[in-house]
């Protein structure tokens, strides 16, 4: 029993991220409205970003900005302990990923506006009907 509890405590975060990803993926596949699909896409991407960010987290560490960086060089600079600071690499990767996701979002919005100008609807079934009419 205690094993199960410790497993849950150690992993529940990952499980919740995966649930979030699946919510986004489901919305992308099953929703009918194109903008709703876009929201699902964004949820999916942010959930992945959340997963990455959490890999950098360390219990008992602080944000990755070195304190007293200008205090001294040489001997004092060597005192920095890696265990005191959170891993900065996932943060860097995810800054890039956020930028990519907002860029994709902007382009997708522009496409939606184009589609609406042409077909006056954003519902997928109505679009399919309009296409088969022609």
């Amino acid at each position, binding site marked *: 029993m205690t094993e199960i509890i410790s497993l849950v405590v*150690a*992993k*529940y*975060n*990952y*499980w919740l991220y*995966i*649930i979030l*990803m*699946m919510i986004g*993926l*489901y919305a992308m*596949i*099953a929703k009918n409205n194109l903008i709703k699909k876009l929201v699902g896409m964004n949820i999916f991407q942010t959930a992945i970003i959340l997963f990455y960010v*959490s*890999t*950098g*987290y*360390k*219990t*008992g*560490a602080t944000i*990755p*900005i*070195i*304190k007293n*960086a*200008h205090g001294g*060089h040489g001997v004092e*600079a*060597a005192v*920095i*302990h*890696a*265990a005191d*600071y959170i*891993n*900065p*690499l*996932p*943060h*860097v*990767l995810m*800054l*890039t990923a956020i*930028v*990519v996701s*907002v*860029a*994709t979002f*902007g*382009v997708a*919005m*522009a*496409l939606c*506006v*184009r589609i609406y*100008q042409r077909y006056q609807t954003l519902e997928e079934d109505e679009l399919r009907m309009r296409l088969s009419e022609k």
Partner: protein
Amino acid sequence: MKLLGFIIVCLTGIFLLYGTSDLPDWGDPNSPASLHLSNHYIEKAVAETEVPNLVTAVLADYRGFDTMFETAVVFTAGLACFLLLRDFKPKQDRYYRHVPTGVVLHFKDKARQLRVGTEFESVDKDWVPSDMVIKTVCRILIPFIQIYALYVVAHGDFSPGGGFQGGVIFGSSFILLAISYNLKTLMKRVSEKFLGIFSAVGVLIYVGIGVIAMIMGGNFLDYSTLAPLVPVDPGHIRALGMLGVEIGVGIAVMAAMAIIYINIVSQGRHDEGL
């Protein structure tokens, strides 16, 4: 479709959950991810680059090449909105409001024009009287937002922030202007040409710094070779290079955000919108 989607989602979810069984515990300080590369960054970055904000150090220096393409992605998004939506044909219908009386004139003929001045102002189709409170508050607020954006760009070495965040905040000050007044006011202040040129110039600053480093005999983006060009302490040159790069990112992002907003809200006609 719903059922199929649900089945696919469940399968993917179970598959992903299966993968988590071998992951290190959440927040474990001894997981491989927080040992291998991260220790090097945390312990060496300040000595090597003199930038206390590790995220900025890694973002703009160790992985500066990624960040260059990230900026290129933002530029691409701006370009995409321009390419997809820009509509050069002026609209047939125009509306003018006679300021003293409040009468709105609707022109359907393209040839006929009214001189816009103190007597007449050109208005949107769904014109709502502008709100004094909102206008005044925004007019006071916008310069402060812009100053804050510059601070975020410049102070990215020491605190959270950097070119991207600063650029977004600067861009949103333009958007605020468009929302509180109207799109025409914004387009009078910053023309499309200005935004287009600046979005390219921003990324060019980034790539240009890299190319200068290459000409000076180092590898692409190796800021340390820039030392002979700038009269500062050679140990500080990397931090300075990062600042230059961040300014480029800020300019590109600022322009790209404004371009995306303007094109989406006016459906590419740049005349009226939210």
